[in-house]
């Protein structure tokens, strides 16, 4: 959804990060994932020397942008869940990358978790100012700061 709101030339350089165990199942899902140019991450077999974060950095290279979903899975209540630590590791390994918070309004109503048929409600995507991992910032501090940034966008 974020991907479709971007201009075409930006879209070519933007890759959503998705779970391999879900998007690699069945021909249709594989086709969808391929057409979005998705970067599939294996959630089951996480190796120490090839962690998902390393894989993301390697695949993105110097040109692509990644769309990351820091909550890991979507909540059913519409409340913003706690962020997983992957975002922190990403920020630590590549401190030069801009982390742009994005909030999608109404997403839980357009396509709730577990449903496959969307309802065409009006939705609104808000992009916020980028943030970086500060020097010496702890994991918990950084994740809650990133979460706050998203919540601020919700109120705009």
């Amino acid at each position, binding site marked *: 959804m974020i991907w479709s709101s971007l201009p075409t030339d930006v879209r070519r350089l933007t890759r959503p990060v998705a779970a391999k165990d879900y998007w690699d199942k069945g021909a249709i899902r594989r086709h969808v994932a391929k057409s979005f140019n998705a970067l599939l991450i294996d959630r089951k077999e996480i190796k120490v020397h090839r962690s998902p974060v390393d894989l993301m950095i390697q695949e993105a290279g110097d040109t692509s942008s990644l769309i990351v979903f820091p909550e890991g899975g979507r909540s059913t209540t519409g409340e913003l869940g706690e962020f997983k630590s992957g975002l922190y590791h990403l920020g630590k390994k590549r401190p030069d990358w801009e982390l742009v918070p994005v909030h999608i309004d109404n997403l839980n109503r357009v396509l709730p978790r577990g449903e496959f048929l969307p*309802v065409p409600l*009006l*939705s609104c995507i808000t992009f916020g100012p980028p943030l970086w991992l500060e020097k010496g910032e702890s994991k918990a501090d950084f994740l809650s700061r990133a979460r706050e940034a998203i919540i601020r966008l919700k109120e705009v």
Partner: protein
Amino acid sequence: MVRFAQDCRLLFMFPISPLSNPLIAWVNPNFLNTPTIVLMAVVLGLLAVVYVIGVLIQRQPESSLNPAVVRAFNSRVRAWWLMFLILTSAVLLGKTITVILFGGVSFWALREFITLTPTRQGDHRTLFWIFFLFTPLQYFLVGRGIEYYGLYSIAIPVYVYLFIAARIALAGDFKRFLERTAKIQAGMMICVYSLSYAPALLYLTFKNQDGSQWSGSPASVLFYFILIVQAGDVFQYIWSKWVGKRVIAPNINTSRTWEGFFGGTLSTTLLGTVLWGVTPFNHWQAAFMSLICSVMGFAGGMTMSAIKRDRGVKDYGTLVEGHAGILDRIDSLCFAAPVFFHLSRFIFSMNV
């Protein structure tokens, strides 16, 4: 059984038949007769004048007018252009296209309505069906012609209502059950059911005062209807600004006054009477029909204002930045359309 087979045949023939005779589908001489063309030309001229006024006001930097009022005025004028273009092209391209375009408007209005109305996750499947099955179905039935009046006039009030209630119950979430059912049903009634009566006018066979078949085009009646309802909005607004003192319901809408209502209705009735020539009505009947349109348009505006106040927004359009709310523009049409259609059918048509 034979009758059923015929119906089936008609059902399958329907999408092909306009194509099999392209001349009639594209330029229908009965559809576009002289009074309709004259009326359209007059409206086009008026729109051009209003547009120029809007541009001139906007260009004046030191204007004494409130910029919000100017913006609202210009957005309304843009909406009229859109309405006029849709209606003109639709009328030129035939009834089926008109029905499809109105269906699109309903679909968009319903999106705005449901976006504004809180629903729960248990309503998701219900919403999917009303958007993608029942809304197109209503317009499909309207497009099948006046023979299907018996079905399309009850499809949403009865069958869709039963479906919504049962489907939400099946989803297993009982919280605020009646409220959710009523909200979705209200959206369907206002955005889809009521508005679908506007293109349904095209399928009526009107009669003259002596009972013989009217030779004019139903497209001009539809055009007349939309023009009168929109004029009613404008006249009520102007009268309210001009002499308005007694606000009808300050908690609902601060700009609608009794003076605006009576003055606007009177002006609309006069305009409708003057334009009687494009309709099968005589002077008195045209006056009566435009009076009804103005009153119903007023009722529609008040009702939608009440819903907006309840949800704490000013316009449906402000939901999404840079998007003009369609529902803000068609609220009066939605309320006036069923009444105008039913009166036309019972009093002025040969389809009773």
